[in-house]
């Protein structure tokens, strides 16, 4: 007889099947119709999903809230890695799609479902196992944030149905052995695994404490809570001690290693270990305060009268009936609802900051897309031919550079610019460029160079009138000066 204890044997199949079921929605992303329809065939969606789960898992510490937008930005980077040359908009759209598929926003209860076989006392039966991968929950201030569920973390670390605390000890033992033999790149992988285990453990113990708080009336402090807390404290303290040891070992290796690549790996490794150590420090803190906190919750039960409220089916009892009311009749009930939803607000007293806020606020009614305020004009982006050629600029630069301390009249330079040559000539227009440059020299005296004692050309107006066929005004004297500095 093979099946002496059928339920015991089948239990392991059931539990592995439940874990494998979680993989299905992740793999299904690549078979999705939406992927083809949107022209996203070349992205590896399942891999992006793992990137998203990784990110949320490692960012979910006890207090940190991971917002969907942050996850999308991160996953978009992986999308860009997979498919270069597409727009940032597409990367974000792909990332948002993957993230929302993992939250399963299309299902009202957000749950994925899979049939799994069980053997019970009544024989074999299939049941629907439901699970979530990324889950939206309120954070510590009541705003929606993402967490990775236990099911998701299971997929991530391929740890199926194991005791989390033992798994964490095992991960660290492996890390220790590898460190002893200075197998650094493997040690990095092991440390990475240990980090995920530390997140899992923190989540697990946190979840258990939360569950106890919720059933505060039913839980017995002296046995259940204290045992859990003590056990967790012992486990975490020994992890902390091990991590301190690992850090010392890494530091020793770091001192003895000269190879740059190895050193960088060691530094990464130390950062990883330090992160676990910090997480455990926070956990110890939490466990130390959980006792008083628990007592407080129990006190609260005594003092706070339970809130009484009417259970209302919003859709059936409010929305359906009000739709059939007349415009006149519906206002009272609808206003009562919205007034109560909005709650009390601070009265509108206009202070100066309120005016500023009011003036700078974009009107909600303003339709259409907002466009960024235009940048200052970038002259290099002007289309159309420049007024003067490179050659002409060279020619004028050469003329100005040749000016000596004796000085030279603008009229002389104009004559030179009208001599035929590279960039010069009677009809070349170079004379015009020259007058523009001269004006500039007259208006903008190069004060800085002069103070520094550097030589510079300045234009001096000594009252001589320019006698020229094209240009009028003063016949400037252009002089190279040595400046007024300590020369």
């Amino acid at each position: 007889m093979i099946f002496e204890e059928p339920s015991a044997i089948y239990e392991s199949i059931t539990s592995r099947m439940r874990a494998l079921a979680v993989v299905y929605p992740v793999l299904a992303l690549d078979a999705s119709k939406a992927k083809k329809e949107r022209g996203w065939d070349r992205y590896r969606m399942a891999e992006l999903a793992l990137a998203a789960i990784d990110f949320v898992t490692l960012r979910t510490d006890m207090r940190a809230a991971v917002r969907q937008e942050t996850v999308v930005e991160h996953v978009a980077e992986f999308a860009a890695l997979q498919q270069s040359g597409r727009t940032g908009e597409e990367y974000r759209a792909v990332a948002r799609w993957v993230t929302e598929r993992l939250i399963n926003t299309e299902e009202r209860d957000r749950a994925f479902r899979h049939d799994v076989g069980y053997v019970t006392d009544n024989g074999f039966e299939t049941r629907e196992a439901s699970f979530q991968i990324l889950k939206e929950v309120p954070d510590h201030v009541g705003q929606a944030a993402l967490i990775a569920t236990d099911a998701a973390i299971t997929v991530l670390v391929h740890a199926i149905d194991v005791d989390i605390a033992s798994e964490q000890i095992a991960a660290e033992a492996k890390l220790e052995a590898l460190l002893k033999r200075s197998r650094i790149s493997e040690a990095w992988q092991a440390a990475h695994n240990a980090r995920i285990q530390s997140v899992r453990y923190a989540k697990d113990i946190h979840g258990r404490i939360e569950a106890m708080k919720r059933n505060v009336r039913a839980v017995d402090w002296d046995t259940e809570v204290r045992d859990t807390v003590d056990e967790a404290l012992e486990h975490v303290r020994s992890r902390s001690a091990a991590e301190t040891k690992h850090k010392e070992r890494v530091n020793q290796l770091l001192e003895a290693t000269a190879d740059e690549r190895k050193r960088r790996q060691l530094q990464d490794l130390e950062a990883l270990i330090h992160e676990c150590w910090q997480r455990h420090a926070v956990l110890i803190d939490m466990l130390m305060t959980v006792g008083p906190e628990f007592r407080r919750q129990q006190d609260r039960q005594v003092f706070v009268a339970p809130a009484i409220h009417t259970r209302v089916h919003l859709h059936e009892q409010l929305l359906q009936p009000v739709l059939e009311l007349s415009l006149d009749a519906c206002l009272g009930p609808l206003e009562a609802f919205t007034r109560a939803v909005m709650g009390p607000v601070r009265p509108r007293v206009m202070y100066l900051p309120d005016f500023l806020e009011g003036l700078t606020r974009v009107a909600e009614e303003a339709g259409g897309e907002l466009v960024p305020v235009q940048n200052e004009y970038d002259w290099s982006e002007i289309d159309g031919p420049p007024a003067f050629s490179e050659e002409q600029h060279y020619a004028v630069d050469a003329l100005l550079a040749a000016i000596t301390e004796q000085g030279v009249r603008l009229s002389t330079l104009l004559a030179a610019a009208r001599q035929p040559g590279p960039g010069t000539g009677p009809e070349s227009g170079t004379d015009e460029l020259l007058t523009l440059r001269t004006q500039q020299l007259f208006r903008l005296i190069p004060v800085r160079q002069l103070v520094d004692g550097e030589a510079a050309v300045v234009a001096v107006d000594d009252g001589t009138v320019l006698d020229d066929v094209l240009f009028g005004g003063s016949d400037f004297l252009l002089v190279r000066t040595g400046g007024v500095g300590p020369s």
Partner: protein
Amino acid sequence: MNRHEDAAEAARMVAFAMARRKAPARSGDYARLVQRFDTEPDFAQVVRKVAQGFDLTVLEVHPMTGLVLGTTPETDFAVSVSDLVPQTPDRPLYLLAQLTIAAMVFPRPEDLDDDEHVGRISVKQVDEEVRVLASAIERRLAQSDGDVDPPSDQPGLEGLWRAYLRRNATGKTQTDRAPRASTRALVKKAFAHLESHGFLRKVSDEDAGTYVTNVKYRLQIRDQAARDMLEELAALGVAALPTDGAPDHDQPSPDDPPSPTEDTPVTDLFS
């Protein structure tokens, strides 16, 4: 601490509740006051009295959102609907959008009691939902020949469902020159108001704007808004359909007293 200091602390707690973006987890001071409220019945009473002085009520104290206050009809601290929607013809449609948002993110009464519930909803979904519901009413009335146009001199007698269907969902039409907002724009406005009051948070621009709910939104609806509206409907004689939940305590019908099992108060603490 003496009585005067208690009064100052209680007023401070009410001030925290009125300010936007304040939460016990963000302010040690607020967290301490929440703890005092939980553990000192006398202090809790002072807080209730301070709120009462402003014509407000203490709905509950929640560990995430802190003190949750409700408005009374007398208070000057409630929002004015005419401020939210200055255009009179838009008002009923805007308010309907507000109710639909709530009904869609909390599809079951128990969702209002779920501390971990996060609703997700878009402008497009809300607009489409109202249109589906309104069209269903239109079809039903057409079958029963009950669909009569309102008298032209009394536009206020038009059904809300019909007024919504008549309004364009998105763009403007060539013929309709009146400056009327599309229903989408009104739904969007409702979302924008909820977001600016800290009840929702926008997660993406998909479907004309997709939002997720904050805990405070749920509490405000569960603790006050749903009941207030139900009472108004009852006053109009609109029969509220019974559900599997407890009936309204404040509206016991004299000829149909609710059975004691149905009348069990629903508590929200740690459940």
